[in-house]
């Protein structure tokens, strides 16, 4: 008897078990962090900690959607890089900031559209397409800006990047993240669009037969991913008041690590926004706490690596346990097996 990991059309069964596990790990990490250093549980430190995560957190949202739909976007950090470079070039050319930001978001959407077009029109695997555009977009970033850096952004805008909500310790970009996270969570877990992503990820053929517009949905996902990367580029550029072609190089790995650790199946069809957000913070908290405790960098890298392995192992083990439980219940109730 074989068991499909999640039946097509019934994908909304989110792995609550893993969500709970990861949230428990966050609480555990918070406790551990406060034991490691007195400075850990201070408002200023938690504020810095979350500000440092904000780009990864933002892009993780759209990456969650894409991986649930059984695709991947490896070009996100390069898209961020080229968008940051464009923002710098435009500002240096005296384009008004509002317009420059709009054009930057436009470039992100375009970059995402190109990815999506190659995937849906030419039927190429997104892994291959976005490995290509990972190089292509980074190259374009260098073509735009070379090894120069644009830095003379007006204080009003840079303050949006690294400032705090007045009277609090909350970083301003975190507010934007919370809003976008709520929108994403609602879209994924409470709308037909969200259900269609699970269906496509679980079984694309079945989804097609069920009348879902698979191509259009995927194209939209890639555009959203590009747009989110562009938004993260604006945040990043202002947060560091520095537009550089090499901005956020390698960030895609942190994003994918967080999404997988958050319980999203790399094979699609399974995962939740809550789990991913918890995972983003788990990684950030562990790194911050270990840094505060003066744990050497090598150990930090090793711990991050182990977390990555856990991110692939954990949900898989959970799924197997679930399957075993189900098998047992199938044995006791004769009707349970047939899908």
């Amino acid at each position, binding site marked *: 008897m074989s068991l499909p990991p999640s039946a097509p059309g019934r994908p909304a069964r989110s792995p609550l078990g893993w969500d709970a596990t990861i949230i428990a790990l966050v609480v555990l990490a918070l406790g551990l962090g406060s034991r490691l*250093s007195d*400075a*850990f549980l*201070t408002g*200023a*430190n938690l504020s*810095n900690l979350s500000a*440092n995560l904000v780009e990864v957190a933002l892009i993780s949202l759209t990456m969650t959607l894409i991986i649930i739909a059984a695709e991947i976007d490896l070009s996100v950090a390069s898209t961020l890089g080229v968008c940051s470079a464009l923002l710098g070039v435009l500002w240096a050319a005296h384009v008004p900031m509002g317009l420059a930001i709009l054009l930057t978001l436009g470039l992100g959407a375009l970059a995402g559209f190109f990815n999506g077009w190659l995937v849906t029109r030419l039927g190429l695997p997104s892994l291959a397409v976005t490995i290509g555009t990972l190089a292509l977009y980074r190259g374009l970033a260098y073509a735009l800006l070379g090894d120069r*850096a644009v*830095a003379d952004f007006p204080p009003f805008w*840079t303050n949006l990047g*690294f400032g705090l909500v007045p009277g609090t310790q909350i970083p301003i970009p975190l507010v934007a993240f919370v809003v976008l996270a709520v929108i994403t969570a609602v879209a994924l877990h409470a709308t037909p669009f969200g259900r269609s992503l699970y269906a496509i990820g679980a079984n694309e053929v079945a989804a097609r037969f069920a009348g879902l517009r698979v191509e259009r949905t995927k194209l939209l996902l890639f555009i959203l991913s590009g747009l989110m990367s562009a938004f993260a580029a604006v945040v*990043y550029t202002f947060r*560091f*008041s*520095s537009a*550089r072609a*090499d*901005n*956020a*190089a*390698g960030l895609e790995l942190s994003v994918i690590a967080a999404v997988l650790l958050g319980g999203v199946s790399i094979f699609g069809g399974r995962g939740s926004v809550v789990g991913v957000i918890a995972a983003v913070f788990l990684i950030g908290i562990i*790194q*911050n706490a270990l*840094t*505060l405790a*003066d744990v050497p*960098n*090598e150990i930090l*890298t090793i711990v991050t690596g182990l977390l990555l392995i856990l991110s692939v192992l954990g949900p898989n083990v959970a799924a197997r346990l679930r399957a075993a439980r189900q098998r047992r219940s199938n044995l006791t109730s004769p009707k349970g097996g047939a899908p």
Partner: protein
Amino acid sequence: MHHRKLMLAALTLALGAAAAQGTIKKGITIAFLPKQVNNPYFTTAWRGGQAAIKEFAGVGKQVGPSDAGASSQVSYINTLLAQRQNAIVVSASDQNALVPYLKRAMQQGVKVVTYDSDVAAGGRNLFVSQASTDTIGRDQVRLLAKQIGNKGEIAILSATPNATNQNAWIAVMQDELKKPQYKDIKLVKIAYGNDDDQKSFTEMQGLMQAYPNLRGVISPTTVGISAAARYLSGSPYKGKVALTGLGTPNQMREFVKNGTVQGFALWNPEDLGYLASYAAAALVSGQIAGKEGEKFGAGKLGQRTVGKDGVVILGPLTVFDKGNIDKFNF
């Protein structure tokens, strides 16, 4: 009564001033934040920084990212802030990205010293600079002139045509060459190896073919000088054509030992870290505020003066040759 208060205030001020001139406080916490940890250059600088901290009985540590990205340095700055360090000594990966965070640190009373690589204005109290542009340019000409007996055709093998620091040094070199003692030296070509090993190697080869009478080459870039040395080392020009410039001892050791290169120069990163530690300690102890003309003691390096824009200069380049190269590991 009023008078007594004034007197007291004056006395306190005077005593305060005396203390400011005086000793470094004990137990100062200083954190070094290099561009990259596990990089021999910064490890050497930290060795010097650590030695200084030990001398004035402070508490020091080095933290930092293993990749040279500015964003990773920012999270370390925040961490050091949370740990309430007295001073941060940082080599900036990005001129601007760190500024807002360093400003925040300074607002909270943390003293900020940059070393090796500065940040934009307002982001630090002091910059401890390796050497002035002037020194770096002139020292290299003097070194080569000595090696070729003040006579003959020379060339420069630089990095890229638009590298700001290289071009500033070359301008100084050209100015230095106008001095009467160099009247028999002729600069025939400035070549560019683009800081690429292969390109520098072939450019060096090209120089030798184009100018058979070439007596010496200055390569003010670590990539260029080692590629040029490798070419010379395997060519008939070995030991006949002088090569000098800026390089690191580990890169150049074999070429100094096999007679390809007599001597080359660089600042001594160990001294750079040592001076940065003393500068940080002087700031924390209130001996100096970072203004032009202020003086502070820097252990074995003697009395140092803060220059324009809060820059403290380490001094002339260190020349590495057969006699001393084995004392350095970076």
